[in-house]
């Protein structure tokens, strides 16, 4: 069966009504474990590109790629799992009802992670992070351990094939 692990696909699809529903429906209908899906336009206005994260074993993953390929609206399936890629995810974290001491800690974390404090209030700060999904996972864990009142908004990962380097 191969190892169950996180894998990534870039999917080029027709920019048409219903395509997102069809792709998402394939995952639910066939019980595939979809963990993240983002979609946006490309240099061609009639083509969209999706970045899809799935957790699966080798056999299921092969089947997912084949099933995606059978869709008429799918133009190309690119397996990013073992490719050099650059991946980023936007994350917002709102830390609320914090003390002055906690606020200082929030700034220290922001500095360490290389992320931005984009808004601030008397007892709150808003952080913006554009890191890899894994780094954002780590950030979330730290924020949860440090603060009690947090809102987290994550955008899902977007990936592009690298030229000579990789960051995932």
């Amino acid at each position, binding site marked *: 069966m191969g190892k169950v692990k996180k894998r990534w696909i870039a999917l080029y699809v027709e920019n048409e009504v*219903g395509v997102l*529903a*069809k792709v998402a*429906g394939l995952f639910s*209908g066939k019980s595939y474990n979809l963990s993240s899906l983002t979609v946006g336009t490309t240099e061609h206005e009639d083509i969209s590109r999706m970045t899809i994260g799935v957790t699966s074993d080798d*056999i299921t993953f092969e089947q997912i790629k084949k099933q995606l390929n059978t*869709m*008429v609206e*799918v133009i190309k399936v690119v397996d990013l799992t073992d490719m050099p890629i650059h991946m980023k995810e936007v994350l917002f974290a709102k830390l609320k009802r914090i003390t002055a001491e906690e606020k200082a800690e929030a700034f220290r974390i922001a500095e360490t992670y290389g992320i931005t404090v984009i808004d601030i209030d008397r007892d709150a700060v808003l952080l913006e992070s554009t890191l890899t999904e894994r780094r954002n996972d780590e950030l979330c864990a730290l924020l949860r351990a440090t603060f009690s009142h947090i809102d987290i908004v994550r955008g899902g990962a977007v990936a592009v094939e690298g030229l000579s380097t990789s960051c995932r």
Partner: protein
Amino acid sequence: MDIAGKKLIVKALMEEGVDKVFAYPGGMIVDIMDELYQKADIELILARHEQALVHEAEGYARATGKTGVCLVTSGPGATNTITAIADAHYDSVPLVVITGQVAQDLIGNDAFQEVDIVGMTRSITKYGVTVRDRKSLGRILKMAFVIASTGKPGPVLIDIPKDIQQAAGPGEYPDQVSIRGYKPNESVHIGQLKKAYKLLKSAKHPMILAGGGVRISGAEDKLLEFAHRMNIPVATTIMGKGVIPEDDPLYVGNSGMHGRYAANMAIMECDVLFSIGTRFNDRITGDLNEFAPKARIIHVDVETASISRNVVVDIPVVSDAALALEKLVEWAEPMKTDKWRTIIADWEKEHPLSMKKPAYGVSPQQVCEAISDTFSGALFVTDVGQHQMWATQYIKLNSDSRLITSGGLGTMGFGFPAAIGAKIGAPERDVVCITGDGGMQMNMQEMATAMCHGIKTVTCIFNNEYLGMVRQMQQMFFGKRYGITSLRKQSTWRDTSKDVTNRESQYVPDFMKWADAYGALGIRVTEESEILPALTQAKASDLPVVIEFTIPPEEVVLPMVQGGKAMSEMIL
């Protein structure tokens, strides 16, 4: 010159050579119907229910190999087609289903008879789309016909809002379309095929397992030639039954849940399994871990996604069956398989297919054999249930005859309308519908379609007064607690009388009165001596005929492999 959408739709149908459209009227297709009214060379078949309508189109498509075309209205007209579209999807039947839709400014308003039919059928169509722009109508219609009929065929649903039908736009219907996301496989990887051939050649106990894909690609003759040149025995799936003539010495029989003992044993014991045009459905494999345990497996299929999906194979070959077999026939050299074939013949002798003579009524085996003899070379269309399995076991197919059945979805109600559609597609042939008393009642309104269009089919109802396939499970595995499987009028839904021959209650309906009500010919057969005269009379009749055979309820389909068990664990 710009023309109305409805005119382009009719033009498309004519350019695609469509001569029959299975249709049911409604407000959202009345424009198209009116346009068709003015074109004498397309015949509209009026069904009596949209589910049956699509089964009729399926029967037509399965009998002719052409694409079946359906035209239904929005809302309930569209939702009624869903079961039959799923049926076509699982059995790879080419269909173009055109649904009317409310005008675009009403979509999303929960308008009268508005449903999101494209959304509802997304997972059971090969392609489906709502036309949102009059300019794209021609291209989308062309795409529909191309996608439905090429590669692994399947149903395509095109939803056309009323305003698009009425709007003026380009009048051209394209000769061809290029679809960047759709490239069906049209070649065969020779290197991979060579590997497959080498492996097969090295086998001591080779087997061929042939499925419905062989029929779809028209590769029957090539398969026969290949098997004969190499002396390899052939088992079939239900969808593949008849792809080689059943009297052929290399034919072992159907494999699977109710397959022949020898065929299942041969697959369990073979050392190389060459499977072609089958997706290894669970009804064929049983317990996947125990399937063909000694074999290295070659899998030829036109669709990449069908390969290594259920059964992980050693040598995958993505190819149309006919293309692959054409090459293989060139290479084929005889193998020594005498010993292996003797082993298989011994299994057959050990447990041949046969049923005991019943205490009363007639046995399914007797009826099936008499049907095969009387209607040699016919199209046999079944419904779903025990009668279907008996038909797969006891109807004998020669090179002219064939079986049309709902294999993948197992849709009760399929048989009768599919037989009507098959006869519409092949009016010169005998079409015999073999059905049960349960499935018959799921689409019996279609007798009106048959009568009004003058379509003569012979419908053989195997009446055992029960929903027999489930009753068989209750009899064998659930302590004979026959809940809601008796079709008799009873005081309680719990049929606790262990004696299934208790005939005090009334059976409904009276199939003879039903046939009579529609003007069809009804014949009841309750004993063996009446079988042949009834079939002979049916064959000679100009009217649609219904023959009701009294089948003892306790008759069960054997052999049987319980769901999830290994194919070697047959109940005999």
